[in-house]
């Protein structure tokens, strides 16, 4: 929450009633940063080329293997132990377009093995009767701040906005993520969320790198890190950067100042990339004057965008600003993967569809600031109608628990205006489309053989307010079971808090 908003209705109301801050919508927690991470040795992260076969199956834990000299900051995620599971007799939404009544889903070795009307149970498989229940892929939130704005939201844990310079492309969200954030288990148990992209906040033109994680709290963020997921670069348009820095008497203080800031940075990044390419060329040719340029973490990230390894995740509300951002991408030869919040995306749905840019939107947030004034309930539906990539995202530790309900509202709003949106359409907004938006759609996001077995068994239609996750599987392993005491998650933070957190779940 911004300093401004802290003083006005939102903030005061939050104080009064205890609402969660709107982390990015209002450029959350621009309070002074403690201990900015001195990042990183290796910046040369490669985008995952294939669905990861999680390599860590033996006793050597990720932490140990990293100590043993593996490259730094890489994923050490290991799935929980799993056995073959066949869910039968449920309504299955595959997110690949299909809806199968009384269908079955087989998970084996952490993967989706089969989906269909009838699937034989292999020997030894656990059979789960899904009568009256629904099965979907695990929910994916393309815009989260869990861990970087952990609960309780005290200043000591406010690690999401390095609001000390309009360009902090050098910071990485993963160096802020606190895996003991008690909001991770809530997103799993209440929301069925199995994967999320955790982003830096939106105070800056360039906020830093995102990290994509499996929603299974571990000892460190690397134990959660989605194997092979590409990094994202958080960029922000509009009110937040110009207010934060204009308020400090420095650039940018206007939208044109924002744009000058982006362009100036891309010019430097292009030169940095060319310098390294030239060095590599000379080195490989054995030329004597090959001089290695100095590494620069900020430019390394921006150059990663120019080379296509890092995906642009662009916070942007207004239609006209999104169009400007598309022009900037054209000028410097990169691609905007997704506009986040995109409150006015419905005004340019055709352009977003034509450019293959995802619009990651809320169902109904509007009016909390000027650039959010034109938000409408039908944003997602109108984008769908134009053939664009629609994502319902949260940007909220409350909202991440109810992405299914948010999609339901958007679907119903579309149908109110005469569209015929079905559950098999809306489920894509929560699964395969956000997977695409964060670059993991080949690994997860739909119930198709060979993909990660990230699966939710819902008590009923997931687009009903009354439905809840009964079981959540991550990589084929039972990560949460509403009725199994051994599958309830409790972070370190929640231990020993007398009678309160004890009875709190879910």
């Amino acid at each position, binding site marked *: 929450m*911004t300093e*401004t*908003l802290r*003083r*006005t*209705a*939102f903030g*005061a*109301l939050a*104080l*009064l*009633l*205890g*609402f969660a801050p709107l982390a990015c919508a*209002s450029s959350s927690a621009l309070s002074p940063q403690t201990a900015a991470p001195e990042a990183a040795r290796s910046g040369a992260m490669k985008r995952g080329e294939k669905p990861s076969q999680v390599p860590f199956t033996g006793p050597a834990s990720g932490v140990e293997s990293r100590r043993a000299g593996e490259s730094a900051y890489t994923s050490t995620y290991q799935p929980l132990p799993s056995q073959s599971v066949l869910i039968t007799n449920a309504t299955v939404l595959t997110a690949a377009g299909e809806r199968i009544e009384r269908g079955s889903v087989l998970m084996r070795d952490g993967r989706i093995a089969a989906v269909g009307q009838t699937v034989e149970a292999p020997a030894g498989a656990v059979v789960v009767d899904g009568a009256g229940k629904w099965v979907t892929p695990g929910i994916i939130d393309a815009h989260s701040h869990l861990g970087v704005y952990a*609960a*309780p*939201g005290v200043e000591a844990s406010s690690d999401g906005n390095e609001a000390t310079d309009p360009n902090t492309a050098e910071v990485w969200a993963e160096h802020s993520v606190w895996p003991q954030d*008690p*909001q991770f288990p*809530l997103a799993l148990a209440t929301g069925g969320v199995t994967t999320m992209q955790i982003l830096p906040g939106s105070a800056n033109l360039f906020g830093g790198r995102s990290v994509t994680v499996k929603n299974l709290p571990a000892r460190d963020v690397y134990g959660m890190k989605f194997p092979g997921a590409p990094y994202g670069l958080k960029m922000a348009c509009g009110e937040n950067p110009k207010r934060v820095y204009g308020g400090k008497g420095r650039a940018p203080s206007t939208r044109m100042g924002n744009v000058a800031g982006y362009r100036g940075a891309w010019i430097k990044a292009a030169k940095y990339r060319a310098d390294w390419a030239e060095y590599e060329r000379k080195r490989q040719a054995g030329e004597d004057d090959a001089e290695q340029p100095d590494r620069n973490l900020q430019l390394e990230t921006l150059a990663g965008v120019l080379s296509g390894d890092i995906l642009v995740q662009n916070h942007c509300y207004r239609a006209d600003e999104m169009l400007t951002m598309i022009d900037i991408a054209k000028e410097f030869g990169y691609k905007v993967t997704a506009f986040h919040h995109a409150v006015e995306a*419905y*005004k340019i*749905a*055709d352009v977003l569809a034509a450019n293959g840019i995802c619009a990651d939107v809320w169902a*109904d*947030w*509007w*009016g909390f*600031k*000027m650039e959010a004034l034109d938000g*409408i*309930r*039908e944003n997602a539906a*109108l984008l769908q*109608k*134009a053939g664009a990539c629609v994502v319902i995202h949260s940007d909220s*530790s*409350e909202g991440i628990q*109810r992405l299914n*309900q948010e999609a339901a*509202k958007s*679907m*119903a*709003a579309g149908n109110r*205006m005469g569209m015929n949106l079905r559950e098999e359409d809306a489920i894509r907004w929560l699964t395969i489309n956000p997977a695409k938006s964060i670059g993991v759609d080949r690994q997860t996001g739909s119930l198709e053989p060979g993909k990660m077995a990230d699966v939710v068994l819902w008590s009923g239609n997931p*687009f*009903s*307010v*009354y439905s*809840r996750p009964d079981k959540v599987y991550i990589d084929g392993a039972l990560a949460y079971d509403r009725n199994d005491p051994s599958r309830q998650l409790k972070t370190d*933070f929640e231990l020993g*808090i007398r*009678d*309160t*957190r004890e*009875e*709190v*779940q*879910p």
Partner: protein
Amino acid sequence: MNARTALTLFAGLALAGATAARPETVAITGATIHTMGPQGTIQNGTVVIENGKIRAVGASVPLPASVRRIDAHGQVVTPGLFDSYSQIGLVEVNAVEDTEDAHSQDDRITAAFNVADAINPRSMLIPVNRVEGLTRVVAAPNPGKSLIAGQGAVIDLGGPGDRPGDYLVRSPAAMFAVLGEAGANLSGGARESSILRLREAFQDTLDYIANRRAFEQGDRRPYLLSRLDLEALIPVVKGELPLVVGVNRASDIESTLRLAKEFKLKLILAGAAEGWVVARQIAEAKVPVLLNTLNNLPERFETLGATLENPARLYKAGVTIAFMSGDAHNSRNIKQEAGNAVAYGLPWDAALAAMTSVPARIWGIAGSYGTLEPGKDADVVIWDGDPLEVTSFPTAVFIRGKAIPMTSRQLELRDRYKDVKNPLPPVYRKP
């Protein structure tokens, strides 16, 4: 003060609408009607609306001679929904301070701060919210620099009406204050100070009542608050005007209950994230609680016990509960609060009651609103499905008998942009 109260109270009950949308005689037939009153739920029933009031409700009701008939077979009828804590009418854009009047940074005004002086019945937020079934809200102040935020009002969302203040259903409806972490922050950083400050304000008010003449002659000890604030607190310390206290931690709720008992206040708790921990005490004190179901996070140390089961647990313990959004733009999502409470254990009827009949009683307007009973104001919503479902929308909304136009700024934006291939630039497109 009291004269004003009475005036606005009765102005609110007056019939409005000599203009475009005059109250008409309407019969809604064939619907499943949740009366929320003694008649319970009626299948295939009829509601007759006349002169702004509900004339009749039942399975078999004779229709007046000249009546507009709405066939609502397969649809659901409820009273208009009520949000017990909103800022509708007090804000257009939160971050644009010129449009935000829910609180003040002027610490010379605390209890006397009265939202009725700022309510904008022409707010663009009103149509957006009422087309989704919300017909009344408590427009509540927020604390600025003072523990005591000021006075809130019950307003209806029917718009300006014919006479100034028609939309004020009850004003003031309550005094608002805050304790717990927020209270501590406003009182030098400690909870003890905040309790002391409130106690001092109440003691000063009692002293002021007993020594008003001496005060006016400059012959009394100084008070913490100004004359205007003391005047505003008189009905609070007399137990006539409810005091709404925003508080969350179980121990803070207990402190607040003690304070209310000490001064015999008519207390309402708002927030109460850990209310379930002390549900028995709240029930015994007969104190109603305004709840935000979806605020289920251990977001602060005072909400470590937050849970989606809070409404169900409080209800089971016998506590009177009503829902609040705490929002303005999306007060309409109050039904999502209710639906989630049902998903986590609250009976369906109790959830709908917590947005209709129960707030009517809490806010002292049960004589005219809250149930579908003959003689009450015709706040009536026809839904295309279960009103607690996130996928349901109203097909018609009546506020005090007037069918409101089913349009809003948002719906106009939608219609302007629904066809991007339209050759006419958007600026010329009429929805």
